[in-house]
């Protein structure tokens, strides 16, 4: 009996969300098949790769990252250079300096950085907070205001501060809202519902369903993304049909494989190569599990992952 291939495309699809404006705007989502299943149906919008830059500068970055940005002295110059990185589709400005448990920069100071970056680049921008829910509530509100008209994605509204962040980003200033939950499909869905109920249109929401570096409880991440896509496509559950963005750089570069020095672990080889390895393998895994965009920081990782996406599409 001859083999008859059956298309695995679904009747439902992931929402398409546009970030940025002008020619360089990007669209994520829109597919009605499992990740990279282009043989089932065409995937209109390939997954996108973003470059993370931090308001804390380059001091703590690995040599390869420092080398890439060599000569850049201001955040605007760094942003410009990040936007030009081969393989990059967008830039993610992370305002980690705002963290009250760290540098505790004032909101005004952070907003200066936002304005500088907004003016410096024409690629789409993602603005990420410092993960401190109260500070982010205020900070992301002001960031959304400062980036008015640029259609940026604000990361992220969480269960504890979604009202303030989503109201500012999604309603007052017309930006895209990132909804962040911690590796649990029900929490992800609940947050989407709550944000939608505030009046934010569903196609203005992008999810970060939580992540980890590969090997660090990563099976939970895979299972959550799998189930989210299965519910969105297989069951047509509108409350989880938002595309997924996954910040990878933070997780990947903060595990011992990336942090242990060569002096401590001579058998492990080059520290930077290990970090790139963690970043690339985590990014490839979350993309294969359903992420529609990843945020990375090392030029080698960005080049590798964008080539992988190109080759698979």
């Amino acid at each position, binding site marked *: 009996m001859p083999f008859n291939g059956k298309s695995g495309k679904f009747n439902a699809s992931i929402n398409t969300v546009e970030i940025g404006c002008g020619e360089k705007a990007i669209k994520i989502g829109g597919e009605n098949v499992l990740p990279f299943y282009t043989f089932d149906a065409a995937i209109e919008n390939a997954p996108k790769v973003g470059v993370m830059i931090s308001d804390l500068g380059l001091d703590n970055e690995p040599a390869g990252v420092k080398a890439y940005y060599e000569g850049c002295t201001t955040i605007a110059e760094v942003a410009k250079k990040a936007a030009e990185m081969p393989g990059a589709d967008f830039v993610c400005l992370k305002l980690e300096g705002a963290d009250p448990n760290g540098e505790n920069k004032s909101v005004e100071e952070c907003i200066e950085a936002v304005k500088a970056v907004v003016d410096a680049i024409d690629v789409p921008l993602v603005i990420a907070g410092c993960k401190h829910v109260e500070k982010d509530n205020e900070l992301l509100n002001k960031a959304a205001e400062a980036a008015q008209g640029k259609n940026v994605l604000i990361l992220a509204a969480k269960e504890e501060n979604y009202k303030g962040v989503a*109201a*500012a980003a999604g309603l007052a200033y017309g930006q895209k809202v990132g909804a962040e939950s911690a590796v*649990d*499909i029900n929490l992800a869905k609940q947050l989407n*519902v709550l944000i939608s109920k505030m009046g934010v249109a569903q196609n203005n929401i992008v999810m970060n369903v939580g992540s980890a570096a590969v090997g660090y409880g990563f099976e939970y991440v895979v299972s959550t993304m799998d*189930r989210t896509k299965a519910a969105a496509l297989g069951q047509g559950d509108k409350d989880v049909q938002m595309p997924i963005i996954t910040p990878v750089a933070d997780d990947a570069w903060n595990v011992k494989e990336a942090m242990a020095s060569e002096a401590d672990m001579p058998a492990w080889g080059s520290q930077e190569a290990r970090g790139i390895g963690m970043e690339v393998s985590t990014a490839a895994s979350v993309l294969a599990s359903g992420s529609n965009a990843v945020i990375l920081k090392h030029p080698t990782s960005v080049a590798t992952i964008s080539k992988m996406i190109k080759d698979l599409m």
Partner: protein
Amino acid sequence: MTLFDRVFGGNDAVYGLTEAAIDNAIAQYGVDQAVAFPHTAYSLPCYYGVTGTKVSNLGELKEALGVVKTLMTREKRLNDAFMSGVATALCAEFIEVLKYINGATPYEEPCYGHLADATIRELGVPLVTGDIPGVAVVLGKAPTTEDAVALIKSYQAQGILVTLVGEIIDQLAEGGMTTGANVRVIPLGKDVTSVIHVVSVAVRAALIFGNVTPGDAGNLMKYTFERVPAFVNAFAPLNDVIVACGAGAIALGFPVVTNETENIFRVPKSLIVQEDVSKFNATSLEARDIKIKIAKIDIPVAFASAFEGEIIRRGDMQVEFDGSRKDCFELVRTRELTEIEDHKFTLIGPDFDAMEVGSKQQIAYIVEVAGKAMQSDFEPVLERKFHTYINCIEGAMHTGQRDMIRIRLSKNTYEAGFRAKDLAEVLYANIKNEFDVVVDKCAVTIITDEAECSKLRQELAVAAYNARDERLDSLTDEAVPVYYSCTMCQAFSPSHVCVVTPERLGLCGAVSWLDAKATKELNPEGPCQIITKERCIDENLGRYEDVDEAVAKFSNGALEHVTLYSIMEDPMTSCGCFECIYGIEPFSNGVAIANREYAGLTPLGMTFGELASMTGGGVQTPGFMGHGKHFIASKKFMKAEGGVERIVWMPKDLKDQVAEKLNKTAQELYGIENFTDMIGDETIATDPETLLAFLTEKGHPALGLEPMM
């Protein structure tokens, strides 16, 4: 004169003024003269919001006045009064916009007049998040300067945004109060027409935050009614113009509270007469359904979960309230909204000062709650939280529940000044904060008088507990209209769904049907959702189309069929947090139960842990199922296979815990007395042969039943 006459009269007067003002302006500047409010993209926001038309010059303004006229119908129906109110508001907007002709700045410090779009966006976010719980529009002249200052300060303390119109602005200045957007007190202007600038805020909020299409007046008013928690306080005397403006406010969903008694007509929830100005705040908040979060509980000691496990030793104890020796109780009572005064505290009997150090005393606290969404079924859910609340007080210890409580207070806490009113404050603040969805008003009564405690314990508390128990007993799967799902543990057991029914609580033992119902009410998007039970397929198995659909949905397709009453056919799944597991014991046609605390071997040849490893994880394992302890005595316990008479073995401790109820169930279902005497335990047998011999000797009913496999 009727209310209609006043509204229509006021509307006509304002319309006349507006028409004259526009005509004058046209005569002076010509029809092409531009008119606009500064710093807004919404033209004349109110007119634009209601009609969808932008007005840019005097000629268009005149045309717009014609449109306003069409709203001014004069039939004596409520809708005509509301529309005339809206017309009055629009006229006010026209009068105000004329003040801004040629870039004029008609308002001076401290008055704001028109507010820019940027301000709306800034204020809108805290309004949406509830950080600004309400918007007060205060209009006119308060009876005295002190009244004015007291009222505004009371709103300020609650975080409410206050806008001021008319003479109250001068009164506050006289009282030395600072005003301004930064302190959330915004004087708009002295003319009554300046009230439109706050209406403009509400309208633009609907356009910006509600995505309301300009011109969609129906949705605009729906948005302002549902989402803009504004209300009006209008001081006497009220002239017809203010009454007409008030009708406009009511049309937008904003109740008007006034101390005017002459020629006024009370409309429930909308036009409220409150002669006592000091009660404007409470009356307004109740009318607009605004709830204020209590940020810090005002007591002399700390309140935090860190103190929850604190033990108060006898030597450190100032006083002990001991329910085993004295008449004590704790009780939540549902009352009507009109029956209680919010935040009222009553003490019957002496305060803690009058109690001898180290003595045993009686105490009773009755927490009365009222709310539109409150149901008496939630009383035990609220009451069960008292244990946590009181334990979180530094230097307080609480054990037990109902009329078997024991509370100890430490000497340090007493010396810090902790008294009965502070205990009441803890209960009040926590109930209001945690249960704000269902509790609108709460009052606490503490009783320390011995005779009163004894009397109320019998007459009130025990009667209430009995009534609740009867309600619980009468709650059967057949008697309720819906069941609930519970997916609380899906984080680690992704495909597991509990179907919680009155006779089968969640397998963790922690979520009863009433808990699930309350969870749904308090957290509508949360883990407990309604499962209908309208399409029964097989009553004996407990198979419903609705249940299957719900399980498929909540397990994201992992499960398709679940029965409520069978362990063999599509049994309910288990997550991993079950209190007990029961499994088939094939020699006797029965089932053996193991609870989590039991570490030994069961006659099934497995320990609890081994049983758990094959039962958990959200998979269906026919012949094995996790469940809560209370389920053992349920009439629905494996009902499809015959019910509790299948139970042949369980650990002795567990048997002792469930004996009374299980015996009662067996008696009612099969007429068997002392059924638990027939059930084996680890002191009798942990191997199937010895167990079978024991069961045969006792004549256990399971031996005569059909085999399950």
